[in-house]
Structures are given as structure tokens and as C-alpha cells.
């Protein structure tokens, strides 16, 4: 189980997170939506300390990290229990798809190379890239790169995968293949925290939806409540805007 307590984060004088807390149970898909600048990406990046939260507490399983007093060992422990899928994929450009997946296994988890290779090939197969093992990122489409990113995260066998707007940088026709992989990962029971603008994905896959704005959680609950019958005005406005944009794009 993952629990965040009272997370605060400021950049200079700009307070981005104002005391966020939530719980994610094992196997749950937790979707965070909200306008840009609402702090949702920062929140996600605080969970694995890519951003150092100013205050608050993070529990993952038996590990508790206190924001102000986190030491190096705790941070690396936190990163061992999490994995991340990035908006811009962030694949290692000097490594093949296979090597991208292997890298963390070999250098961080100290798994035997041969073992890691087998393991990595299986995960790339799993995301439908069994025939692209030896391709470099620059030889793959955006959707394929992001699927490598997902394979890289899965292979680490983390307690939770953090998805940071995984489809926002993709051409519209490539979004589907990535969402499909994410859906199947969710069906396999992986715990996922997903920051996204894909409302349909949230509706279909999420167990819990959070609407964030201005550094606080405005509203949360089951997708059927938050997305279909939002109580807060800000949530309604946001959902209207998102659906409206999508309709415009569809035309």
C-alpha cells in the first residue's frame, strides 16, 4: 500500500503542492487529472524524489520516508520500490530497446546479465516489441518508445509504477497503442498512479480518480462519480473544457 501524508512543495516562492495526501491500495489504478500547473506532475515526481518534497511523509510498503529527513539510502530504497514512465519517454538514447530495459536490472539490481537479458526480452515481448529488441530509440516511433519505457518500468518489478502524462507527447494516432498496453498492465494487477488528460482511460481503467487544482485535491472518488457527476464547479469546468477540446479535435 502507498500512502502520502501532507506533501508540501514550493519552487522559490511559488507553492505548488499545499498539503496533499492520499492512499493507494495494492493493485489499484489511481488517476490524477487537472489543468496544467495544478501540481499533479510535481506530486508524482515527489513520490520517487525526483523532486524533493519540502514537508510530508511517504509510505510504500514497509518503508517510511520523512521529507525533511530523507537520507540517501531511503531515497534509493524509495526508487527501488517505484518505477516511472515519463511524458517524453526519456529512453537512454545510446542504448537499444533491450539495453534500456536491462540497464536498471544490471547496474542497480545487480542481476546477472544473461538473466537480465532474458527477463528484458520477455517484457519487451509483453508490450508488443519482441521484434524491436536491437533498435535504438531514434529508430522507434513515439508510441514504440513509450512502450519500451513501460517495459523498462515493468521489468524492475516495482511496487508501483508512476505514469507522468505518458501519452501527452504522442501523435494522436499513436496514443491508442500506449493506452492499450497500460490497460493490460492494469489488468495484471500492477499498482499504478497515472497523471493524464485521457478522460476515457480514467473512466475505463481507474479505480479512483483525483481532480487536482492549485496544489490541492479538489475532488476525488470513483470515476463514475468524479467524471460523470462532479460536485465541484472547478471539476465541472475542467471536464467541460477537456471534452470540448476533444470534440473540436475530432472534427
Amino acid at each position, binding site marked *: 500500500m502507498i500512502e502520502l501524508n501532507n506533501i508540501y512543495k514550493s519552487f522559490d516562492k511559488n507553492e505548488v503542492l499545499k498539503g496533499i495526501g492520499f492512499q493507494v491500495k495494492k493493485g489499484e489504478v489511481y488517476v490524477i487529472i487537472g489543468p496544467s500547473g495544478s501540481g499533479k506532475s510535481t506530486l508524482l515526481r515527489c513520490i520517487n524524489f*525526483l523532486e524533493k518534497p519540502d514537508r510530508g511523509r511517504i509510505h510504500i510498503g514497509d518503508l517510511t520516508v520523512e521529507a525533511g529527513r530523507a537520507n540517501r539510502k531511503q531515497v534509493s530504497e524509495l526508487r527501488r520500490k517505484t518505477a516511472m514512465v*515519463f511524458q*517524453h519517454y526519456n529512453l537512454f538514447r545510446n542504448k537499444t530497446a533491450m539495453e534500456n530495459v536491462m540497464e536498471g536490472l544490471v547496474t542497480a*539490481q545487480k542481476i546477472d546479465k544473461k538473466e537480465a537479458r532474458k527477463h528484458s526480452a520477455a517484457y519487451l515481448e509483453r508490450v508488443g516489441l519482441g521484434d524491436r529488441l536491437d533498435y535504438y530509440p531514434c529508430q522507434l516511433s513515439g508510441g514504440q518508445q513509450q512502450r519500451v519505457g513501460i517495459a*523498462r518500468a515493468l521489468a524492475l518489478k516495482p511496487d508501483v509504477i508512476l505514469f507522468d502524462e505518458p501519452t501527452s507527447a504522442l501523435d494522436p494516432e499513436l496514443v491508442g497503442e500506449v493506452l492499450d498496453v497500460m490497460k493490460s498492465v492494469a489488468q495484471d494487477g500492477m499498482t499504478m498512479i497515472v497523471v493524464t488528460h485521457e478522460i476515457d482511460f480514467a473512466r475505463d481503467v481507474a479505480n479512483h480518480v483525483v481532480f487536482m487544482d492549485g496544489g490541492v485535491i479538489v475532488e476525488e472518488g470513483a470515476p463514475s462519480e468524479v467524471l460523470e457527476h462532479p460536485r465541484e464547479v472547478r471539476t465541472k469546468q475542467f471536464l467541460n473544457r477537456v471534452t470540448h477540446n476533444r470534440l473540436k479535435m475530432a472534427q
Partner: protein
Amino acid sequence: MDELLDLKYMAEAFPEILRYAPVTLMIAVVSMLFGLVIGLFTALIKIYRIPVLKWLAGLYVSFARGTPLLVQMYLSYYGIPKVLVFMQTHYQWGLDVSGIPAIVFVYISFSVNVGAYLSETIRSAIQAIDKGQLEAAYSVGMSRLQGMIRIVFPQALAIALPNFGNTFIGLLKDTSLAFIIAVVDIMGQAKIVGARGLRFFEVYIDSAIIYWLICLAVEKGVTVLEKRARKYERGIAS
């Protein structure tokens, strides 16, 4: 001695001068290697804005690039022994200062000089790698050092290689200054052979040809290295 060029003299002098090409190459290669180490540390100090050191690094780069190499060579050749002798008489170091070969001062001044130029090349190359890849390295559990060595440096190297090649070629030619402090390299030997028959035009043509050939070889070598370092940017992996 009435003809413009004594081709026979030129031909005979060529192998004699060529014999000293290894000295020139040695100066260039050793200085380049030390320069790369100095340049890397200077670049990292600047990138991570390490207090006090970053100020010193800035001063160093500015000085090394803002004063002539010849002056730096003299400073090294006359200055360092002076300081050593001073230390010796005051602190009784058991060191034979006059026993240090002149070429050591060439190595020092050239390394310091080229390190300053390389530091800027290295800094811009490292900063050209988007930091998302380093974040991804952290996210899979790698340390900063691992991420730097395995992900960032190889890509930065590919970017910096053409510049390294240029710097190295510049350095190779600058080594011709070394004979001024009594190091016998291509240039020093050319002077000696030229003085023997008072045939200076011939031997300088010889040395020009030798320098040129070496530079051509280096250019070729760099191109090959660059192709290898950038293999991830080209077609399907073999």
C-alpha cells in the same frame, strides 16, 4: 648553393626529421590526456556550480585562454623550478630540481592550456544531453555516478568528438613551440639538420609535410571514432 631548392638535401633530411615525430606525438597525446582530465573536472565544477571552486575554475579558463601559449610555456619552464628551489631551501625537500627534464614543463604548460579549451567543449557537450535521461536513470535505481558514466558521458563524447579532434590538431601544431625550451621534436630536429648544411628552407618544407601528414591521419582517425560513437543515431543496430 645557388639553386632555389636542394632536393637531395631535402630528401636526406626527411627521415632524420621524421625520426622525431614520436616526440611531437608524445607531447600532443600526453597533454591531450591530462587536458581531458583537467577539462572534465573543470567542466563538472562549472556544471554543478561548486562554491569557491567554480570561481577558481572560471579564473583558470579565462587565464589559460587569455594569455599566449608561449608565455605559459615560459612561466612553466622558468617559474616552476624557481618555486621548487625556493621550497627546497626553505623546507628541505629532497628533490633534484635541475634533474627534471625540460619536456615535463612542456607537458605541464600544454596540459593546462588545452584543458581550459577542452573544459568548455566538455561542459557544453554534457549540458546538451537532456536531463530527463538522468532522471530516468535515477528512476530505475541508478546513482548519479552510474547515470553519468553509463548514459550521459558516452553521448556527450559523441557530441564533443569533432571538437576534441580540432583541439588535438591545434595542439599538435602548437607542439612546434616546444623546441624553444630545448626539447628536440620535429621542429627542433629540423633546426639542427638545417643548421648543419645551412639549408633551412628544405628542412622546414620537410617538417611542414610531416605535420600535415600527421594531421591528415588524425582527421581520418577522428572521423572513424565519431562514426562509432554515434552508431546509436544511425540505422538499425548490427
